[in-house]
């Protein structure tokens, strides 16, 4: 294995990407239940709003945000000649996604455990 920040970002990009595709399938299944009527929709939606799912939601948020900012980083590398700043850009993407995950995750957890 040839380890580097670039490799870490590549693996994380792939893993979060695959996780998000799996989530998308589940999401379509849950929201698609509206075709079966309001009752089914509400019950299925309530089932995925228990505290365990709220924790998973924070992980989902982290995956989405990291995947997005990793993508922004790649767009920057593609459109501007900044390969010499590759390490700084990687850490910047990491810090920005960490901040956004905390900012978005805290309200989710506060709501889930305090009501």
């Amino acid at each position: 294995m040839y380890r580097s920040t670039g490799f870490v970002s590549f693996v994380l990009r792939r893993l979060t990407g695959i996780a998000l595709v799996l989530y998308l399938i589940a999401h379509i299944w849950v929201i698609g239940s509206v075709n079966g009527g309001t009752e089914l929709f509400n019950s299925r939606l309530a089932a995925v709003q228990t505290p365990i799912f709220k924790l998973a939601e924070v992980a989902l948020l982290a995956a989405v945000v990291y995947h997005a900012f990793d993508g922004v980083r790649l767009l920057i590398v593609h459109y501007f000649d900044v390969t010499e700043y590759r390490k700084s850009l990687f850490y910047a993407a990491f810090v920005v996604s960490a901040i956004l995950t905390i900012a978005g995750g805290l309200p989710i957890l506060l709501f889930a455990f305090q009501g």
Partner: protein
Amino acid sequence: MRVFQIQRISAIALLVFLTIHMTVVHYPPFHIDFGRIIDRMGQPLWKAIDIAFLFFVLLHAISGSYAVLIDLGGVARMKRTLAASAILLAIVGFVYGTLTILAFQPPV
């Protein structure tokens, strides 16, 4: 090249749509049910936004999965079959998703 371009364009579109989706639908993070979202989902403009969102999400997810799979030397040999099934999957997903979005009607 086409997969690369699709990924870049849909990625930029998703940055916009996902920001809207996250802030409007999931913030603040109260309990969500049919009654809470029907006000918004009843409007044609929001339906249009969500259909566009669905389009770009599927584009990004399916071309992304395709790119992940053909990275593997063995799978790359079957890439025509893979591309065909990816397009088929995208169409099925888009039709089903659009029907779902259109099904959000206020109860009569």
